[in-house]
C-alpha cells in the first residue's frame, strides 16, 4: 500500500514520537476495578462451597429424608403423562465415605471351604436436582455391605 520512500521516512519520524504515558491515577483506577473482580470471585467461591456442604448437607438432607420416609407410607399417585417424558429429579452425585470395617471372623461354607466374613460400614450421600426449578435435594444414609473373602491356610 505504501511504497513511497518519503512516506516511509515520515512514518518513521512520526513513530519516533512516543504517546504520552498514562497517569498513575488511571492505573490505580484499573487496578481497583480488577481487584474488585478478584474479591468478588473469591467471595463467590466461598459462598458456593458453604451453601453446598453445610446447608444442603444438613437442612436439605434432613428435610428430604423426612419427605422420603413419609412418602414410603403413602400410596403413589398416578403419574401425569408429562412426567414420563422428563424425569422429576436428576441424580447429580453419589458420595460414599467408609466409616468402619468389621472383621466377622472365619466361617466355613457348605462345601466346607474357609471364608472370611467382613462387614463394611459406610455413609452414602446422594444428591439430586429438580431440572424444573433447580432445587437441590440431598439424602444421607448409612450403608452396610457384607463381603465374603475366600481364605487358605498353609
Amino acid at each position: 500500500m505504501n511504497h513511497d520512500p518519503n512516506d516511509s521516512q515520515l512514518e518513521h519520524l512520526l513513530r519516533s514520537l512516543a504517546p504520552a504515558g498514562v497517569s498513575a491515577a488511571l492505573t490505580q483506577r484499573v487496578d481497583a476495578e480488577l481487584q474488585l473482580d478478584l474479591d468478588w470471585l473469591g467471595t463467590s467461591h466461598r459462598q458456593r462451597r458453604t451453601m453446598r456442604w453445610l446447608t444442603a448437607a444438613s437442612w436439605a438432607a434432613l428435610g428430604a429424608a423426612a419427605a422420603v420416609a413419609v412418602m414410603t407410607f403413602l400410596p403413589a399417585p398416578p403419574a401425569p403423562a408429562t412426567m414420563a417424558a422428563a424425569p422429576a429429579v436428576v441424580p447429580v452425585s453419589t458420595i460414599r465415605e467408609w466409616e468402619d470395617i468389621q472383621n466377622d471372623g472365619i466361617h466355613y461354607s457348605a462345601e466346607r471351604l474357609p471364608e472370611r466374613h467382613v462387614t463394611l460400614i459406610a455413609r452414602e450421600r446422594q444428591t439430586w436436582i429438580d431440572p424444573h426449578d433447580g432445587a437441590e435435594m440431598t439424602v444421607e444414609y448409612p450403608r452396610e455391605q457384607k463381603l465374603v473373602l475366600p481364605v487358605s491356610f498353609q
Partner: protein
Amino acid sequence: MEAAFDWKRTFEQVAPQLVLYARQIVPTLPDAEDVVQLAFVRWWRRFPEGDSAHIPLLYAAVRTIALDQRRSDQRRVNREAKSDIAVAGEHAPAFDPLPGQAELSGIVQQALRELPEAQREVVTLKLWGGLTFNAIAAMTGDSINTVAGRYRYALQALHLKLAPLKTELLGDSPALHPLPFSTPTEALP
C-alpha cells in the same frame, strides 16, 4: 495473583497508545482516560490471558465506548458551559517527546487535530496502534481501500504541516517538496 501482574504489564504496553487513540475521538484527556479504563477492564475480563492477537478488539472497545461517551457528552455540553478543567484537558500533551522533539511533537499534535476525524483515526491506529489496514477496516466497517486512502491523505497532510521542519528532520530531498496532489483534506472526509 499472577494475573494481577500480567494485566499491569499488558496495560503499560498498550495504555499510552489507547489514550492517544481515544483522544482523537473524545475532547479531553480525562475523558480519554475514562474511556480507556472502561475498555481495558472490559477487555481484560473477556481475555484475561492478555493475548496480543486480541489487541484489535481492545481498540474496537475504545472506539465504541469513546463514541458513546462523546454522544452523551455532546448532550451535556449543549446544556452546560465547558469547565476550565475540560478546556485545559483538550490541550494536554499527546506525546512524550525526546529531547529535541518538542517542536515536532507540538506540530504533529496540532496537525492531527486539524485532520478530518476519519483520517486522524486511521493514522493513529496505524502508526501508533500498530494495527493493519485489515484490522482497521474491520473495526470501522469501511473497505480496506477506503482505509488505505484515508491513511495516504493523512500522511500527505502531515507531510505538508511538517514541511517547515523537513530540512532538519527529514533531510531536504527533492521528493519532500510539496506533493503532486490536491490539498489532501479536500478529497476524502
